[in-house]
């Protein structure tokens, strides 16, 4: 009876993994098409959309995981999730995307966002050396993010005129702002739900087939919460949206630090254990 239960759990776990992957692929597709349409209609550049709304949406799994972990007394998981995700975003996500499609960027367009990403990283590393991310630092990081988004809005307004028309949005019937926002929200919802199903399914499958939880957490959970970025980048690569690929990763990494660490520390100061592997990885 117990063996049958394990068997059923294994089948259900792999079913959750498969359905989670399906949701991630569809979610990435919808999000990119809707974001491109909204950018075109609103007169905003695709780089702006990629670095703000898409980046925040695809960082949602990390946000929920980190806030929950810190509030329940596991700050190491909270910070490790951000550090691990940022490393995975650059090496794994961009690496996998580059294999599909050569990524090219314009330094003049990237300079501002890249400097914010590097600045946010330096702030986080300094706070990790300090030993705690206090509440005031959380508010400060979120204020920097809000100022950055506002600045991007003012400087990028009107830049979308030069971008090419997105035919995939037409193919999906996205022809009004309402439908665009609907597809965008549905896409982000599918990304978050798919990521959650994949992570939970993988953890359950790991338990069912006897793989230690630490190994599952270090590999599947860290990569799983970055899968929305991967599916969004692969979808953007297939559509040749180069600016959106780099904007997504650079924006996600800045968002991971400024919004996720910021919001997490605002709710409860984030302690850093200098002896933990996360400090080494920082």
């Amino acid at each position, binding site marked *: 009876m117990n063996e049958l239960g394990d068997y059923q759990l294994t089948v259900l776990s792999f079913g959750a993994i498969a359905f989670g992957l399906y949701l991630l692929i569809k979610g990435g597709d919808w999000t990119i098409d809707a974001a491109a349409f909204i950018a075109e209609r609103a007169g905003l550049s695709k780089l702006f959309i990629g670095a703000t709304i898409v980046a925040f949406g695809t960082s949602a799994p990390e946000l929920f995981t980190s806030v929950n972990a810190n509030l329940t007394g596991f700050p190491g998981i909270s910070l490790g999730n951000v*550090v*691990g995700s*940022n*490393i*995975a975003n*650059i*090496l*794994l996500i*961009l*690496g*996998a*995307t*580059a*294999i599909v499609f*050569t*990524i*090219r*960027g*314009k*330094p003049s367009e*990237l*300079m501002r966002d*890249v*400097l914010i*990403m*590097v600045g946010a*990283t*330096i702030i*986080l*590393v300094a706070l990790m050396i300090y030993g705690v991310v206090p509440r005031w630092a959380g508010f400060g990081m979120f204020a920097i993010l809000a100022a950055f988004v506002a600045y991007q809005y003012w400087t990028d307004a009107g830049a979308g005129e030069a971008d090419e028309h997105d035919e995939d949005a037409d193919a999906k019937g996205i022809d009004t702002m309402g439908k665009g926002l609907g597809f965008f929200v549905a896409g982000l919802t599918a990304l978050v739900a798919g990521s959650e199903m994949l992570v939970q399914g993988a953890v359950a499958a790991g338990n069912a087939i006897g793989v230690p939880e*630490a*190994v599952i957490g*270090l*590999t599947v959970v860290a990569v799983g919460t970055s899968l929305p970025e991967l599916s969004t980048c692969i979808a953007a690569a297939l559509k040749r949206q180069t600016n959106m690929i*780099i904007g997504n990763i650079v924006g996600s*990494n800045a968002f991971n630090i400024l919004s996720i660490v910021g919001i997490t520390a605002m709710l409860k100061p984030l302690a850093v254990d200098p*002896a*933990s*592997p996360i400090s*080494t*990885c*920082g």
Partner: protein
Amino acid sequence: MAGVTVAFAAWMLTVSRIGRTAGILMIAAYVGFVAFAYQDLILA
């Protein structure tokens, strides 16, 4: 994380291109990072 971020930033602002070979090397570096973190976790 700081090392990876700064190296990526410097690469994008100078070379501005990530091809297939660089992509494979980046994934290899990530596998190395996971192995390092796993070893660190086990030793801790």
